[in-house]
């Protein structure tokens, strides 16, 4: 946010806030322990709004659930912004003192009247107005989101649209008020922190900044390329063009996790050389020329990870890795040695200490301090610094020098999802997670979850009835990219015309055959959340035994 790639608040703040907005986040299932903190806030009396096409298990806790049409987030955010302005609820002092570009923003949201907002999002105007007023009036407010915001072709703009609301109301940079993007994996945040981004060194330092690059050149004794690299989607495009011929994949399974994965597999297969370092022989690893078996980071190796509240915490080995599997640091060091550069055999702590010497925001995070304090939240610039529970307090400083760079409003335009609904593809398919499973299931498939049920196409009771489908009946789901066969499941949290699938069981039902790989040019994230599909009953005698009576009959009874 505003220059730093991390959430602005601590979990504890949501326990003491007055209003919680969960936007495109089903934290109840995807981030259950964060949701505990949120619930403490609700128990203390905080009000909650949920914005989500589904009335998810998270949304069921909300005072008001706003069931927007998939992909209309910017339309809603702009409508809320306009309403806050029209209602005279802008935090004028904060906007004047700490932001730039308000006038342009106000002009950009002007067309988004409440009526227009209702038309674009499906949410009643009065509910949008209540939302706008409550968010602006709250003394403290936390705005949280997850992949419902970022897995769109307008991912970055979606985030900016939400940031604009926090700037309008001053809900950032104060205890209890902030912006909270929840990270989907235990070290997504840490990956970014450590420079696993095309344009960043560790600590979000810009590779295209000569002075910074010079620092790293000097420390490493090499010349770092002066241009940024490719993000994931650009890499696949480069493969398509033939510009990228060799790939080293660490702990990812793009053959199954990428949208439109028929294309992903084709491109991976077309590489000259594919190296995969993983703890599993994933679908991607099966395509590889070389597989480097790795130790399980969380259980078998030493290191650190960073959580969604920017807290760096230590991993410790509890198990001996199986024969042949090695620690990531060891594999990388060995690879460097074979490539002619001897890094020695540094311990994880030594690697970390080097990072601390180069990344000012990590400088104070000695291993023993991480241990003693139960993790430290960045920035932590010195060894006597306690870490930083919330960011951007500077924006509230009276002294312009201490306030630093002002936060810019970013007017964003609304574009509907690219995969249009038509008569041929009338159903909007969106995707998400289930509580007991994780991503493509390679980790979570290993334990006996009493909650687990196979992949289904979840449909509203109305659609089940209209199609004459029975619970568990197999259907063919077709998008503009492909078809899969999957059983259906009645799901009351859905409205007519909205369908839901997870990505957890690609071997059984490969959802990403259907999804669109059009990606956000700014973030490289694909639009997993908005696919147009058609649902067809299979011809008789496919051999599928319906597990229940057709729903139409069931509904009449109820």
């Amino acid at each position: 946010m505003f220059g730093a790639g991390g959430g602005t608040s601590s979990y504890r703040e949501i326990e003491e806030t007055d209003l919680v907005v969960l936007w495109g986040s089903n934290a109840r299932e995807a981030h259950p322990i964060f949701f505990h903190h949120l619930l403490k806030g609700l128990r203390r009396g905080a009000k909650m709004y949920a914005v989500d096409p589904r009335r998810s298990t998270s949304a069921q806790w909300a005072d008001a659930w706003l069931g927007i049409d998939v992909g209309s987030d910017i339309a809603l955010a702009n409508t809320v912004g306009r309403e806050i302005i029209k209602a005279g609820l802008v935090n004028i002092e904060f906007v004047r003192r700490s932001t730039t570009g308000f006038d342009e923003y106000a002009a950009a949201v002007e067309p988004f009247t409440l009526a227009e907002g209702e038309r674009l999002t499906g949410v009643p105007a009065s509910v949008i107005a209540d939302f706008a007023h409550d968010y602006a009036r709250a003394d403290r407010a936390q705005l949280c989101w997850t992949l419902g915001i970022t897995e769109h072709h307008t991912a970055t703009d979606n985030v900016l649209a939400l940031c604009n609301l926090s700037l309008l109301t001053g809900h950032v940079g104060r205890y209890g008020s902030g912006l909270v993007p929840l990270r989907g994996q235990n070290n997504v945040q840490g990956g970014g922190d450590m420079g696993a981004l095309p344009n960043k060194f560790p600590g979000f330092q810009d590779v295209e900044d000569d002075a910074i690059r010079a620092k790293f050149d000097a420390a490493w004794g090499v010349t770092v390329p002066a241009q940024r690299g490719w993000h994931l989607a650009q890499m696949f495009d480069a493969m398509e063009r033939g510009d990228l011929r060799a790939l080293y994949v660490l702990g990812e399974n793009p053959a199954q996790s990428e949208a439109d994965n028929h294309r992903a597999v084709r491109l991976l297969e077309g590489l000259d050389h594919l190296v995969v370092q993983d703890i599993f022989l994933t679908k991607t690893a099966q395509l590889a020329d070389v597989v480097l078996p790795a130790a399980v980071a969380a259980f078998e190796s030493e290191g650190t990870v960073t959580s969604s509240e920017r807290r760096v915490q230590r991993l410790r080995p509890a198990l001996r890795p199986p024969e042949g599997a090695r620690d990531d640091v060891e594999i990388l060091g060995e690879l460097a040695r074979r490539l002619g550069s001897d890094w020695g055999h540094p311990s994880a702590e030594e690697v970390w200490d080097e990072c601390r010497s180069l990344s000012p925001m990590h400088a104070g995070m000695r291993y023993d301090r991480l241990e003693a304090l139960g993790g430290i939240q960045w920035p932590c610039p010195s060894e006597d610094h306690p870490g930083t529970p919330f960011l951007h307090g500077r924006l509230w400083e009276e002294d312009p020098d201490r306030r630093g760079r002002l936060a810019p409003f970013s007017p964003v335009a609304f574009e509907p999802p690219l995969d249009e609904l038509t008569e041929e593809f009338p159903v909007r398919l969106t995707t998400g997670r289930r509580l007991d499973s994780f991503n493509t299931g390679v980790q979570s498939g290993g334990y006996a979850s009493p909650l687990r049920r196979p992949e289904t196409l979840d449909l509203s009771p109305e659609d089940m009835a209209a199609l004459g489908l029975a619970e568990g009946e197999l259907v063919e789901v077709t998008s503009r990219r492909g078809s899969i066969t999957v059983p259906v499941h009645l799901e009351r949290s859905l409205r007519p015309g909205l369908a839901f699938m997870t990505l957890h069981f690609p071997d059984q039902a490969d959802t990403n055959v259907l999804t669109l790989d059009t990606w956000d040019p700014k973030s490289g994230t694909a639009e997993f959340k908005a696919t147009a599909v058609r649902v067809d009953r299979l011809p008789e005698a496919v051999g599928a035994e319906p597990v229940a009576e057709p729903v139409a009959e069931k509904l009449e009874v109820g």
Partner: protein
Amino acid sequence: MDLRTPEAPPTAEERFAVDSVLGPPESGWFGGERTPLDGHVALGGLAKARSRRHLLLPALHAVQEQVGWISLAALGYLCERLDLAPAEAYGVASAYALFTFEPAPPVVVHVCDDVACRAACGGDPTEELAARHGPPGSGTTVTWRPSPCLGHCEHGSAALVQKAGAGGGRASLAPFTAGDMDRLVALGPQVELEDLPVPLALVPQAGAEGSQLRLLRRVGRLDPSSLDAYRAAGGYEGLRRALEMGPSGVIAELEEAKLLGRGGAAFPTGAKWAAVARNPVRPHYFVANADESEPGTFKDRVLLDHDPYALLEALTIAGVTTGAEKGFVYLRGEYPVAAARLEHAAAEARNRGLLGSDVMGSGLRFDLEVRRGAGAYIAGEETALFNSLEGRRPEPRNKPPFPVDRGLFEKPTGVNNVETLLSVLEVLAMGAAAYARQGTPDSTGTRLFCLSGCVARPGLYEVPMGTTLGSLLGLAGGVAEGRSLRAVLLGGAAGSFVGPEDMDLPLSFEGVRAAGTTLGSGVVVVLDDTVDMTAFVGRVARFFRDESCGQCVPCRVGTQRQEEVLGRLVAGRPLGSVGDELALLADLDQVLRDASICGLGQTASSVVTSALRRGLLGNGALSGNGRQP
């Protein structure tokens, strides 16, 4: 909340019952038909769920009465409507004796087999029923079950008839004979509850020469449904007076009258009201505790069946004095007549502007609701009562905090029992000074006593505080049929025994305290030499075993162990020596009194201990000191 409710849909009947309390569902997300709007918005949240949870008990009552039992599907629908977890709702419902979770015959007759009725008939009144109609629970259209005290002790026998379906509800029958059961069985589901005779109130002093009844003066002399009759008899003059005096005036009057609560703890009423009134936290609540369930007690039933407006007036005075705008009458579920008459009276009072937004033209707001218990003695404990009203398990809370600081819905709350509230009317009617001249200097006013058992004229009596036990028994004609007095149970199951030598005991707070006993709720069960004392005391032990809420270890396990020891002693099969068993009882007595959370546990061993001290359990096993082989 992200609930998982049972998948089976409720029947139309179950849905109707729930909706009759909660109104029609407001959206497809909370039990209604799904509409297109539901696809885009849902209004719920914790605040709303919290604000509706108190409707749980009324909704459970509705299902139980309509259907005769509570199915998983009905529970699920109710939970969907209230945004409440089914496990929690079950936890609450299963703590009450009047709710059942298996299909039951449409007519269930709960037959009292408690201490007063035992004393009256000299044995177990359900033995004959079992012989004629089979064991409890048998029968397909009509069945019977033994019940703890139903509050008709002066009749010596009683039943509560519960009928499901159309025309269903509850009705009391007292006295109740095996012949009545024969007729009910013959009628089956055709029985019309309104055809059953309303039990009489026995107030033997009424109209008697020289008796100067105060609290009881209207009982039996007014049409209990007529507000005008109540006003013609001086009703609502107390409220007018209270409004004229203002809160500080009323409180000063109560303090000067030295009115002490009639609930057992004898807490000064004026001080309690003052503490609520001055608490800055808002809103305030006031609760009338009419959950009279102490075995041997029936005074609330008599007062509320026959003088319902008096309680409403007194509660209104309490409300306007303590700054409470909302009051509750928590009435035990076994009093269907009182429930109907109170509801009717409240509607009349509201209609005449005596409840509502402008009480008697004063500009003050006060209204009340009548809520019914569902068969749980513990709900009469004031903090358990709050939990019950809130739709939680009727478990007592730890004190402090006390209700005046944090009571109902966590807000400052006044709570008094019926007799105390009605005494407030007397204070206002006669003035503090005159009121204080009645009774003794430390126990002012009059007191109600529920006389039952082996007494010539059982009934509800009113005498000045300090009247001796002997004179009270004299008023009631002494022991029935001229037999000799063995003991008197004073104060109910939580009380203790006194004997023939205690006839000079002054029935005042200080008098009984000095004698190491209690007035409790005014229970006086007279026991002659024909009563089977071991069975009688065993019934008390069983009562506490049944009525413990189960929250704290001393009471949950201690009441079970107490019943077991008693059983062994009665059977003459002690573990080790009798002395060992008596030591065990003494230990149980101590942990119950010292470490239980609430007054139920703290008094659960009182009768047993008292009976042993007085040697009422006979000489058999207890006198032996030899070890069993």
